[in-house]
């Protein structure tokens, strides 16, 4: 496994040169390619070695379409090739015209329920090569890359991941960050929080949240993005804000009109539980100002005010 650097000496990928025999019943042929993975261990691509094109089991060379199809297959982390043995992928039930025979032995067929499942995924006539390469791409190499990265990840490396444009890098970076590092990059993480998926947002919030009532700079920034994130993340933000008491509820006041009915009720219940002095600014600067807005749930605010006043 080799590290690939850019001109700034930043690690940008991992590469492995593969020379492996693909064998069937003692008949073997070589398979030579270069495989590439990104920094998270996700497959990036492959190239052939100079002068060594890929061939099928009957020696026909790969066509341009075959090369593309192989790449598409290798991109699919969740291919049906996963957790299947070669035996499960080959059936003898195919009509003879659809069978591929090598040295008098049937090596591949493409009918039957199981095989049909992968029929469109694998290169016709190259099932064994496809199978071997897919398992190389998603096998021990990924574990090695992840172990290497976890051991050698510097702050600079993590920042590189956060600044990248690929969403899976963001989640990967957050996983690599400890509590201290998380709090050192509030601006970057808030930027990621704004554009990443709800699942990554959940991860960031889990990492960012402490047991302290007081909100950190990062948490304040995340709460400030309340209206720009999805509904499930909003619930998580409300829960965090409630834990911090009046400061958290005040920080969320702008988002009240974007809340669902249940979210509003959570918020108001927390406000109701505060001491009157702490509650007053939330009522005056938050609830009252929004109780007559166009939102569909302003009646919840009005009911609260009727009860409270």
């Amino acid at each position: 496994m080799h590290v690939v650097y850019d001109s700034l000496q930043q690690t940008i990928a991992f590469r492995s040169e593969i020379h492996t025999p693909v064998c069937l019943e003692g008949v073997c042929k070589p398979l030579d390619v270069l495989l590439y993975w990104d920094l998270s261990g996700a497959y990036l691509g492959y190239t052939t070695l100079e002068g060594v094109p890929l061939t099928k089991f009957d020696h026909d060379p790969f066509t341009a379409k075959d090369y593309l199809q192989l790449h598409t297959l290798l991109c699919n982390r969740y291919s049906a090739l996963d957790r299947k043995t070669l035996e499960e992928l080959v059936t003898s039930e195919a009509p003879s015209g659809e069978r591929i025979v090598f040295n008098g032995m049937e090596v591949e067929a493409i009918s039957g329920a199981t095989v049909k499942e992968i029929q469109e995924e694998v290169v016709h006539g190259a099932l064994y090569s496809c199978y071997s390469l897919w398992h190389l791409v998603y096998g021990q190499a990924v574990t090695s890359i992840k172990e290497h990265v976890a051991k050698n990840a510097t702050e600079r490396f993590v920042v590189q991941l956060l600044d990248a444009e690929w969403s899976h890098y963001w989640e990967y970076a957050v996983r690599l960050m400890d509590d201290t590092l998380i709090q050192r990059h509030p601006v970057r993480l808030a930027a990621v929080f704004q554009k990443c998926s709800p699942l990554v947002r959940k991860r960031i919030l889990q990492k960012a949240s402490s047991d302290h009532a007081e909100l950190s700079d990062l948490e304040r920034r995340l709460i400030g993005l309340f209206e720009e994130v999805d509904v499930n993340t909003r619930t998580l933000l409300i829960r965090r804000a409630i834990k911090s008491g009046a400061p958290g509820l005040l920080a969320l006041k702008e988002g009240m009109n974007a809340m669902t009915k249940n979210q509003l009720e959570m918020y108001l219940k927390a406000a109701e539980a505060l001491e009157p002095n702490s509650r007053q600014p939330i009522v005056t600067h938050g609830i009252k100002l929004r109780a007559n807005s166009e939102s569909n749930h302003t009646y919840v605010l009005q009911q609260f005010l009727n009860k409270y006043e």
Partner: protein
Amino acid sequence: MFRLFVPLFVFCSSICLKAQSDFLIEAESFISSGGWLVDPQFVEQMGSPYLLAHGMGEPVDDAFTSIDIEDGGKHHIWARTKNWVPGNWQAPGRFQIVVNDSILPNELGVTPEWGWEYAGSVKLEPGITHISLKDLTGFDGRCDALYFSPDELPPPNDLRILALWRQQKSREPRRPSLTKRYDLVVTGGGLAGCAAAIAAGEQGLKVALIHDRPLLGGNASSEIRVHTLGIYGKFERILRQIDTEHYPNGSSDAILDQTKRDQNMQVQANVDLHLNFRAYNAVSQSDSIQYVDARHTSSGDRIRFEAPLFVDATGDGWIGYWSGAEFSYGRESVNEYDEHWERWGELWSPEEPDNAVMGSSILFQTTLEDTTVVFENVPWALDVAKGHEAVAGEWYWEFSRNDLHQIHDGEQIRDHMLRAIFGSFANAKTKEENAGYRLQWVSYLLGKRESRRLVGDHIFTFRDVLDNVQFPDSVVQEIREIDVHYQENLVDEEKPDFLSKALFYRTGKYYIPYRSLYSKNISNLFMAGRCFSCSHVGLGGPRVMRTTGQMGAAVGLAASLCKKYGVDPRTIYESHLAEYMQLIESQQSDPE
């Protein structure tokens, strides 16, 4: 309306109320519900069954009743109702009250949240007064009750005070006047409850089966129409009496098997069916349930059911909940039971426990006609449907969100799904190629997948599947995938929030032990169905009907041994397991 009234009135004149100066009429107790439907799903949250005008855009026929007024005079009239979609549009579920041919002025169903809305006043003459509910929209207006009073004071809105007020107005005693005693009381008439009743009844137990619908089958019924999955295990003979073919989700083919199921249950010699009775309480003493109380969803009649043994087949685990059984809700941490699946990570099982569960579905069916079918605009649905277009639905029309509880917020979830369906259908209808589509059927009953899971001596988990554990008390078996759902918008927030995806972990045969089918801390409580003892991921595979039917049959047989030896469910495992397993083995042949 009046042609219908005359014969019905003659029939029911003996039960008509001799009204006092002020009086309460429960809408679900009307002489005729017309096209309105009795909806008992949310009694625990809003206080009562109610009438629902579920016309899919076509106003439904009037619901109607009559009352013998003792003292005439001016009466003010309120209806307990709600605007089910508050917002900047005309409320979708509006209706009016008609008294003796006079339409009261105020349109109702216009105020958010359940409460009393003022309909108007009317001068009543002593004698028979006719009252009807006139649906104005066909879009799920709802009415819980009507209150007539000479005073201008509306009834209370606070749920607890309202319950007491209701009791007082109806002069209802604290406990049901009728008590029935059985060997086994099964609550919930889905496939699990039906199978439990059959199995126990065949062994000679006197069984009560309490079910809050007129039709048996739960999610498999023709009212909900989730198709049946799973294998028969050791109970094919029993389950074939009550299951369904694998019709498409939402298909009207479900009706064909409904008749079979209902007829087969009617002929069970030792099983008393109490249809349209919804349990509302279960009381335990020294960790043993003494009785379950249930109320008829229309008449309000109540029965107390006493027995030494009870089965909770309610799905939501209500009997366990009321009686103090331990239960869980939500997803455990992936580490709690080692339920890791790297491929799907957090979607499969979270790093930290949370309150997420699989969602509930509302299924629907459309027909394609030769002529143009008009479907009106539904601006109140578009907040949910947004730009989504659909003329057909499937199981993946499913809704769950982390600020909603599948039980406490059930009405909100159902209503969200109705808006998703009506809005998506309306969007599709703007296209010329969909001109002939008609919404033929939309369920109003939630098809729930997951809520409370009662805790037993064993908690069935994904780990039991991965490790292929064959328990000494394996009474249920299954081969279907472990199938856990997630909402699509968790991965891509631009997706509609009412669509889900399924994660399938394919596996060989796996087994569920008897110890997952009785409560850990309530000594005489069995559970069968999706409220059995399992983890969130553990529920993924065996939550389907034939598998839950196996659970029901298994506990029905266990109950027969409990009676034989005068012991509780746990003792069957500890002291009579060989006999129990043999009894299960013998189930393939007809009982003598």
